[in-house]
């Protein structure tokens, strides 16, 4: 099961080359996203989009808030 992390831990992991992935709809990503984040909307997560991510690096996903 994925580990829930806070903002400080996000920054630590990104400094160690983690990938950031926003899973909100693309329009929301286009308006605002964390620096360096990629857009992979929840409904578009599949074998094809997964193939564009680096399996050797930690992966951090986020949305708008706790939901």
């Amino acid at each position, binding site marked *: 099961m*994925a580990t829930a992390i806070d903002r400080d831990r996000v920054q630590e992991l990104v400094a160690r080359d983690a990938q950031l992935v926003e899973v909100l709809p693309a329009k929301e990503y286009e308006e*605002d*996203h*964390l620096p360096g984040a990629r857009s992979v909307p929840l409904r578009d997560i599949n074998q094809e989009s997964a193939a564009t991510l680096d*399996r050797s690096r930690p*992966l951090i*996903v986020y*949305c708008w808030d706790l939901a």
Partner: protein
Amino acid sequence: MAPRAAARLETLGFTNVYHYKGGKLDWMASGHPTEGENSTRPRAVDVARKDVATCDLKDRLGDVRERARATGLEAAVVVDGQRVVLGLLRAAELAKEPDLKIEQAMRPGPSTFRPYVPIKEMADYMDKHNLDSSPITTSDGKLVGLLLHSDARQHAEGCPDCARPMIYGTV
């Protein structure tokens, strides 16, 4: 949504997955920058008047009125020692009896808004709720500045509506 996305990625074979529980809202609320279209458009923090007069609950209204006028604004914000917003004095409150204490004259508990809200959304909200001015605060209630409706409307010119409303839950 993020926990479900993380779970889906794990089913696709990813083994080192985390989900940022606070999400984009937590990131922006803490004052961190973002990238994207909104990063080039004004937000509440960019337009708010940082030179608004502030005062204490025990100050005399007449004295605060003079300080407010010196800033060119018909408003002042009531704060505590840590600059947490306690009340607001708009023109109607500033016009009250000058010997009143601020505590007796202020509009208590005004709605406050976060610095990252796009100015178009602020202007539309202020239109809808007939707000002449609104305090902009950090998420822990500390004053950043006072946003005037006229300033918000001017800077919102040409800005589009955003897909994600950011004001809900703002108190």
